[in-house]
């Protein structure tokens, strides 16, 4: 088992290398003068030259790359023009906000999609089945930012149920003492029930938006996978042996059906991390997505590079986790002959 995990980690290394190279190239591939980009639109000629020397942009490319990697190893992602702060620091501070949102969104979607898919598969052509199919087809067509806006309009403007989409917490509350950075967890730890409720209220709409977005592929995959497994030979054997329906569906069908769903999660995460950016813009959520968007608008390139790098590294790590999880579930992968 450990060997499998180690093997998977080794496989992740080339991906990381690729990521680093690509992010490096992205900023060096800028049309025109990279130094000018890094110095900002308002820089004078001297300032540009200063930046050029400072960032080592006058050096040959491979030396720049070595320096880049060195910086990365030391946790240095450059500085933001607009805030003057180190990018690494900003990202570290803002990451929990994005993570909390994304994780909650994923949980919401799985809580709905998986049971929906299972029931749709076990009751073909029923209402649930049709609902599932409609959701799967329509869900992938919904632009995530559009969904968010509609939800705001309906639940905030029309119905007044949701709070104003102004960030993680209403102005009247102050954040709980920092432990994980996740307001929900931290407020529980600190015993601040009101803060918990307030954070949750702010989280609801954006999390549902993300959840709706991830719902479609997961429901579709669960349904398809369950259908395939329910038609398989070993389920037929289980039925022919007289096993109870619940045993057949759960122990025999579901566990096997979840394997492809777990694999799909990797793709779902790719979409989620991208959708995160859009949702953060709509709901003014102070995560790394909005950090990147602000940097974009200001033509501030160091944060952008740091953002892309961070997201990619997180994604590689997530995929690794999924691979390991898959290996845990499926003995065929775990037991290497």
């Amino acid at each position, binding site marked *: 088992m450990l060997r499998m995990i180690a093997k998977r980690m080794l496989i992740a290394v080339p991906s990381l290398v690729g990521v680093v190279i690509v992010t490096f190239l992205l900023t060096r591939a800028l049309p025109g003068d990279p130094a000018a980009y890094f110095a900002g639109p308002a820089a004078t000629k001297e300032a540009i030259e200063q930046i050029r020397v400072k960032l080592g942009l006058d050096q040959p490319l491979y030396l720049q790359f070595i320096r880049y990697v060195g910086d990365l190893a030391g946790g240095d992602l450059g500085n933001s023009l607009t805030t003057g702060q180190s990018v690494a620091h900003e990202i570290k501070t803002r990451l929990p906000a994005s993570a909390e949102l994304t994780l909650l969104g994923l949980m919401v979607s799985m809580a709905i999609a998986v049971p929906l898919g299972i029931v749709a598969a076990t009751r073909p052509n029923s209402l649930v089945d049709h609902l599932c199919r409609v959701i799967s087809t329509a869900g992938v067509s919904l*632009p995530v930012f559009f969904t968010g806006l509609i939800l705001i309009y309906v639940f905030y403007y029309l119905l007044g149920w949701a709070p104003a989409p102004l960030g993680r917490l209403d102005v009247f509350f102050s954040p709980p003492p920092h432990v994980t950075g996740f307001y929900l967890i931290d407020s529980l730890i600190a015993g601040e029930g009101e803060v918990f409720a307030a954070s949750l209220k702010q989280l609801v709409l954006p999390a549902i938006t993300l959840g709706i977005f991830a719902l479609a592929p997961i429901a579709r995959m669960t349904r398809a996978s369950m259908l395939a497994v329910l038609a398989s030979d070993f389920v037929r054997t289980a039925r022919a042996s007289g096993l109870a329906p619940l045993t057949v569906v759960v122990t025999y069908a579901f566990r096997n059906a979840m394997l492809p769903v777990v694999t799909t999660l990797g793709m779902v995460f*790719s979409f989620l991390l991208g959708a995160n950016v859009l949702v953060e813009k709509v709901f003014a959520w102070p995560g790394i997505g909005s950090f990147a968007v602000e940097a*974009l608008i200001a033509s501030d390139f160091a944060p952008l590079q740091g953002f892309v790098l961070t997201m990619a590294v997180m994604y590689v790590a997530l995929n690794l986790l999924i691979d390991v999880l898959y290996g845990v579930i499926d003995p065929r992968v775990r037991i290497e002959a």
Partner: protein
Amino acid sequence: MSKAASIPESSPQGGGEHAVSVATLRPASTGSASAPALAPRNIGIFAALRHARYILGENAVTGFAFALFLVIVLAALLGPYLVPYDPLASDTVAALKSPSVAHWFGTDQLGRDVFSRVVVATRLDFFIAIASVALVFLMGGLAGVAAGFFGGWTDRLVGRVADTIMAFPLFVLAMGIVAALGNTVENVVLATAIVNFPLYARIARAEANVRREAGFVLAARLSGNSEMRILLAHVLPNIMPIMVVQMSLTMGYAILNAAGLSFIGLGVRPPTAEWGIMVAEGAAFMVSGEWWIAFFPGAALMVAVFCFNLLGDGLRDIVDPQRRT
């Protein structure tokens, strides 16, 4: 029952005639024939069209999607000539008017007619989608087919490139590419194509790989075909249907991608009419109740993507019913 018939036949080796008995067996299975009449008819494009029409007729949803697709194409082609108002003309007096007879979709904060802008934007979004899909088909499809068919270094190289792209969350990578290369529509197209490259390459590669050792390829080799001819004449036509399905599905994604990028300010700049940027502009007003500015372009987006997805599903059913989900 079998019947025997004697047919005088000249043997292929030119060895004169000899009688060969031919036993005709009854058809293998009753009640399974899918094709109607077996009369010889024109092959190729006509048969394909006829078959397609048969399937479309059978499946109302696909027919509907196809009709919708035609509407979109028409809007893209003829829209700018038919809209009531100039999409760029602002009229501050008439700003922020809700939908009415005069302005079907209302007006935005600069008094521009939303309906006209939505229709005109069809062209731009459609163009972006088509261009990205065509580009990725060329890049990814060819690379994938070569990788799958020839294997070896080609395969490894294409695989590496695809893996590197896949290591990124795709939208994030697209952001990075557009930001790095410059904030233009062309770069949005390029970014979308790059981001979809692994998918196409992988599909094309898998299909080519499967067929590489397939019986008919072996048989083609036996008949004396060269590798190139096998690739082009035998393998490629086999792959086309699946690629076409994928292209249709990707068109929807390409539009969403482009709209998402313009929503955060990449690619398209004001005052261009494009669905994503219109939603972005209207977002602020959603909160204060002027819903129509963001709603209609968003709905148009949804409808277009939905149409492409349905079309893709329908095409897949025509082409390869076993892959239905």
